[in-house]
Every structure is written in C-alpha cells, then in structure tokens.
C-alpha cells in the first residue's frame, strides 16, 4: 500500500473546535429514506402532531432502519426534495416546530450494569428501533450488519476512527469529547459479537484524540488502540482492514466472512446513545468547513435545512459556489442550500465563488498512468473510462469496474482533470 495517495488534511482549525449544539430548526425536513436497503414509507400524515423521537417512517423489511422526528410539532407536508444520500429526489416529511419539545419515550434506557444480562436480541432490536445506520457514509442498517449467522465467529472488531476525508473532523471530536460514551458503545458491540478482539484504529495526526483513546480504552479487555499514519483511502473499511490486519477482502465478500466487523466511531456513539440513553438517531455531529468564517463541529438535528446552519454561521449566501456534504472526495454536492441534514451528513463543506481558483479544464488523457498507480483497489480507471465513453459496459465490467470503492482518488490525481470516478460509477451495477 506504499502507493496510496496522500491528500492534504485541511483540518487544522476544525479539529481543535469543540462540538457546539446547533438550535433546533423551525421546520425540519426529514427524509423518509436515508439507509441503504429496503425503502421506508411515511407512517404519519399531514396535520399529525409528532413528538421528539417518534417514529415517522418505517419499513417491514429486515434490511431497513426507521426514521424519527427530531422535533415536536405538526406535519406540514410530505414532498419530494433532493436527497444527498442518493443524489436524487425522494420523499421528505416537513415538520413545523411547536417549540414544546415534547418527547416520546418509547426506548427505555438500559443501565450499564444491566448490559451483561441483556440478550443480543434485545440489543439488536434496540439498534434497529433507534434507526441506526452506518454513519461513516455507507448507510447500511447497523442491526443487520451486526446480526451474524450463528456459526460465524468474529475475531476482530475494528472501530474505524480514521476519518480520512479532508476537512471532516466530526469523528475526531467525538473521539476527544465522547471517549467514555464510545467505550461503552464498544462494550455493546463487543458483547453482540461474542467478545472479539477490539482494535480502535485512528490516524496519528489526531494528536488530541489519541491519548484520550488510550486512556479510555486502557482498562477494556482485549482492546488495542492503533494510531498510525493512514492515508485518506485507508478510511475505507476494506482498505483499513488491509492496513490493520494485512489481508484483502475479496470483492463481494462481506467483511464478517473474513472474521472482522468494522464500525465507524459515529455509529458506535449512536449505539451507546440508543442503548444507554434510549435515544433514537435524531441528531449527529457534523463538521462545517471550507470557505466559512469559522470552521466548526455542530451537534445538529437530522432534518435541519443546511441553509439554517449556513446563515447562523455567517456564511455569505451570495458567495457560495457549491456545498458538498459527506466529504469532498466521496460526498454529494447539494442542489440547493435548503437540502437537509441526513443521518449520513458527516460534514458540510462550502466552496465560495470568491475563493474559487481558476478551474482547470478537462483535457485529453496524457497517458501518464497516474490514475492506475493511485487506485487503492488496483483498477485501471482510464481503461474503464474509455470503455464507458464508448458505451461498452460489458468491457467496463470485465475491467472490474464493480470493485471500485468510489474513493475518487483517480479523478483527484488526474492531471488532465478527467472525471474518471464518475465514469467508473456509471459502469458500476
């Protein structure tokens, strides 16, 4: 992996800024579907009064995760809006905040002393009912990921604290400020998985987080904190496993088949909140960064329109060129600044018109081969791009386009500024 491309972190200010509570929105726009897997349908109607934590969308399918109201108030309308989880419009429930903060208490907290006696069934149901999905970006329902076939033994749980995306520091702040909560979240997952070895994997550049992790996890059984130099690409679960455990998971195989489960720190934090506080996933920590007056980390309600956050943080709305959520390398550019925060919005990165560097135009491939040496899964992005441009998707598939992990490194390094990653994405099934 000596060939992995190092990308500048751009985290200097945000990583030092403590998590700040962001006020509840006046109108929350809660997307009905934020998970990968089966689709939810709304279970409230226009005019209904909902309370904080009330389930408002759900599915009967197993591979799904319900969605809860982040505020109390009235359902104003159910309408399609742009969904940054998928890159197209889907249904959203608009809720008007009544300011009463009425809470629904349908998830009873489990005390830490009760944990050992609690069955996996109860814990997994709790994780499902709390609507927890992979918050590292994948969005896969966590309860399903943790429900393993009975004969499957997990040897290692890797807690992914690599947070490779430039600008993003939400996970890093969680590791600094919520270390104890993470430790108890890890205990839950470890128990579900039958007490595997736990590795907390993070980057050595997270200088404030590393000692906190060592301190919080030093008393935990069979647990190791590994803080090493990791590149952006090693934030991906499969590439991280290679970096930590030195094996390559064959494409198509789930990581549990290799005896490993990888959980993102934000997901672990959400699990701890759901189990010990009885809190469904209605808020998350997100980083506001890029061309903003003050880069920071915010604890924000899911469903908060991003425009609220930008206004409150004095971002000049007339000077915005683009807003990217979920990471500048893998994330999604918003269509309007009114698009809402989702469970997967790990960051909001603003690019200002006034700071935009002169764009480099896309030119013909110069055949430097850099995209090939840079691809962490050893694909030939330019060959796939050429096949896709010719409409030859069969060839693209033969070139293993489906193995792409969508890291965007190929486009990042290309001196001709060819949108290789987008082409490979088109070829993926």
């Amino acid at each position: 992996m000596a060939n992995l491309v190092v990308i500048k972190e751009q985290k200097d200010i945000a990583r030092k800024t403590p998590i700040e509570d962001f006020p509840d929105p006046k109108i929350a726009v809660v997307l009905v579907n934020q998970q990968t897997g089966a689709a939810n349908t709304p279970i409230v109607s226009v005019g209904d009064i909902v309370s904080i934590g009330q389930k408002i969308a759900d599915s009967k399918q197993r591979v799904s995760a319900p969605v809860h109201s982040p505020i109390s108030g009235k359902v104003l309308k159910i309408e399609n809006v742009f969904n940054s989880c998928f890159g197209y419009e889907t249904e959203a429930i608009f809720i008007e905040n009544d300011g009463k903060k009425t809470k629904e208490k349908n998830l009873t907290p489990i005390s830490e002393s009760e944990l050992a006696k609690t069955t996996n069934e109860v814990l997994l149901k709790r994780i499902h009912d709390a609507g927890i999905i992979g918050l590292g970006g994948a969005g896969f329902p966590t309860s399903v990921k943790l429900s393993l076939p009975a004969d499957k033994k997990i040897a290692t749980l890797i807690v992914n604290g690599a947070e490779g995306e430039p600008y993003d520091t939400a996970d890093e702040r969680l590791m600094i400020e919520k270390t104890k909560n993470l430790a108890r979240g890890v205990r839950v997952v470890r128990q579900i998985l039958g007490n595997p070895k736990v590795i907390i994997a993070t980057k050595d550049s997270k200088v404030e987080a590393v000692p906190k992790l060592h301190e919080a996890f030093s008393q935990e059984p069979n647990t190791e904190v590994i803080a090493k130099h990791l590149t952006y690409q090693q934030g991906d679960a499969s590439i991280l496993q290679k970096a930590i455990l030195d094996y390559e998971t064959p494409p198509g195989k789930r990581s549990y088949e290799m005896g490993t489960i990888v959980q993102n720190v934000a997901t672990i934090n959400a699990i701890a909140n759901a189990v010990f506080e009885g809190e469904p996933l209605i808020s998350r920590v997100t980083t506001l960064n890029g061309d903003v007056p003050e880069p920071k980390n915010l604890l924000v309600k899911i469903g908060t329109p991003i425009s609220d956050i930008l206004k409150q943080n004095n971002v000049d709305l007339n000077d915005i060129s683009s807003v990217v959520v979920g990471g500048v390398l893998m994330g999604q550019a918003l269509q309007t600044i009114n698009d809402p925060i989702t469970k997967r919005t790990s960051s909001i990165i603003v690019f200002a018109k006034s700071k935009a560097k002169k764009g480099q135009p896309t030119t013909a491939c110069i055949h430097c081969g850099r995209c090939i040496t840079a691809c962490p899964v050893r694909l030939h992005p330019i060959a796939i791009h050429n096949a896709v441009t010719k409409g030859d998707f069969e060839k693209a598939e033969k070139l293993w386009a489906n193995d792409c992990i969508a890291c965007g490194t190929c486009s990042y390094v290309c001196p001709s500024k060819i949108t290789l990653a987008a082409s490979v994405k088109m070829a993926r099934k």
Partner: protein
Amino acid sequence: MSNESSNELVVNPAPHITSTMSKTRIMQYTFAALLVITIVTSILWISVSCPTDSQLDSYPTLSNVWQMPLGLILLFNALIAMGVAVGIDVLFNKVVSDSELNIWSSAVFGLIVALSYSLGVPAMAMGADPIPVANFTAPNAFLFVALIALIGQVVFKKVQGIGGRKLVNPAAAAKLLILLPMLGSMLLPSEHFASFEAGGLAMPRLAGPIAATEIIGSNGGGGFGDYLIGCFANPSSMEAGNLNSLMLFNKFHGWPGGASSLLVIIVGIALFALGYKYFKWKVTASYFVSIAIMSVLMSTIYADADLLTRLLFTLFIGSSIFLGFFMATDPATTPFSGTGQLIFGVGLGILTVLIQTYMNFFGGSILALIIMNLTVPFIDRIRIGKPFGRK
C-alpha cells in the same frame, strides 16, 4: 423556506477537489528541464566554432556552410524548432475547431527536436569521408530541424493524435523520416569502414572485440575508445581528451541533448523528483539497467579487453542518455502501468544495444524507441496483478 433556493449551486460529481498537478504543469516542468539543458549545453559549446578553421581548410564539402559558434547553432535550432511547433499548434487551433491549444507541449516538442538533432563536425572528420558533415552545422541543420519540427508536429502529433492515442514518439518518428534518405551515410557509421580504404578512420565493429586504445584481433584500424575520442572530443583543441570525462561531461558531436551526460542525469532526476509519480521514471531506470547488462554481456561474448569502453559508449552516447530521460518517457507513447513501463524500458535497452551492435546504427535508440512504441498497445493489454482481494 425563503428565496435561497434561487441561489444556483454548482453540482459536480465527486470528488470535489483535485490535486494541483495538471497537464500544463507537467509540461512546464519538462520545458524548464529541457531549457536548462539547452542553455547549459549552449554555454559549454559557445567557444567552439563549427566547423573549425582547420576543418574548413581541409574539408571540401564544407565550403558552403556558415562558420558559427556551436552553442549558437544549438540556440538557433531550439528557437526554430519551438517557433515551428508552437506556430503550427496555434494555426491548428485557429483553423481546426476541436484542436486543443497545447503551447507548452509544443514548446517541449520543439526543444526535443533541437536537442536530438546531431550537431558538430567531429574532430576525426577527414576530407575524403563520405559523411555529409555539412548537415551537422548551419545552415543545413536549421533547415532539417525546421523540417523535422514541421513533419513531427503536423503528421506525428496532430494527425496521429486524431485517432486518440499516439502510437510513435513524434520527435523520433519525424527525425527518422526526414533523415532516412541519409541512413547509410549519416546515421549508420558503417560508411566509416569504407572510408578506411579511402584513408579515413577505420572504426572497430561493435560485433567484435573492442578496447580503449588497442586493436584486438583484426577489428578495425584503431581502438574503439580512440574512435570515440576522435568522434566526440573538442575539434578545436589539440588535446585528444580522456574517454571517461568525455563521455560523462562534455561531448562536442552528436545529440546536443546528451552532450553532457552528467547534466542530463542531474536535470532528469530533478524533474522526476518534482513530478514524482507523474513521470515514467521506471522506463528510464529499466532502460539504463538493461543497457548496462546487455553491454557487459556483449563485452563477455566478444571478449573485450575491458568492460568499461563498451559500457561508456552504450550508456553515455548522447542519443541514449537523452532519449532515456526525455523521449522514452513520453507519456502518450509508453505503457500505462508501472510493470508495463519496466517491460518497455527493458525491451528498449535490449533493442538499442542490438541495433548499435549489429546494424552499426550508433544512435539506434531512436529506432528501438519506435519499435517499442509499436508494442505499447499490446503491453497495455497485459494485466499484471489482480484488483484488491482478487486471486
């Protein structure tokens, strides 16, 4: 929701940032490297007049040439080749609607043409030698350089580029095409053998035993090292010079780009370091390693008196040292993958030594390059190593 939705956002696919390395920057770096070589070589060569007074006196075929400082001829060549290449690029951009303007790439091409055009009348040149030595100096050199730049830019860069990827190195292909009619006399020193009978220097054959100063067996009329000195030493100085320093520091004949091997090595490595991972340095490395191995092999087969003479020649002849760093690494005409580049470099090295040895074409690397260029589409099809996790 207020009126912010009217605020048009740019929506591009991920990733939303790119590295600062661009095609223009790669070309600018390369241009700077070639410019350094051009300027330093011009300075090294400025005090040598070409041809020398004594060459003019004793060389009937030089009656129509212009006597100029050798360094100045190189500078003019560089300006002419760049002017032609850039001019055509601008013209195409104006006339052909979808022709990209590539000023830097054209300037780089121009410098490569100038630096790979042999200059300097060798010290050993003798009146009866049938080599058209006038072509190694002004004004013929100016004309040929302009022609090579013209044909290279139009045929091998523009026309060849229409189908997508270029197949052969434009500078190499254009040079070979233009000088082909003079293959026997100018490119292949086999005529040097003939000149022996006519009183010229009888050059030892490479497909036979060689030594620095002695004649081994009946191979040639002098030592191979002596021949090289006669070829590359400063023609205006009475001192013959030392073979090692000549091959390494400053030759006065042949490809100006390779006049000083040390200069090329320093500038080349600096360039690769600047654009590490964007330049195909693996071609260069494997090329020189395979040349060295081939050279030692040939020395052993032919029982040379020493290994060094052949090695100094194969590694440091201007065409090899310059081509290895600046032409064999042309991205368009070399393989994509690292392993492909290694295969390419090894093939190039082997072919170069074979052509030098058995065709008597001392600048044979240029022909080897074109042959290897043609194999690139095949090399690129070989997939070495499987994607992540696949066995």
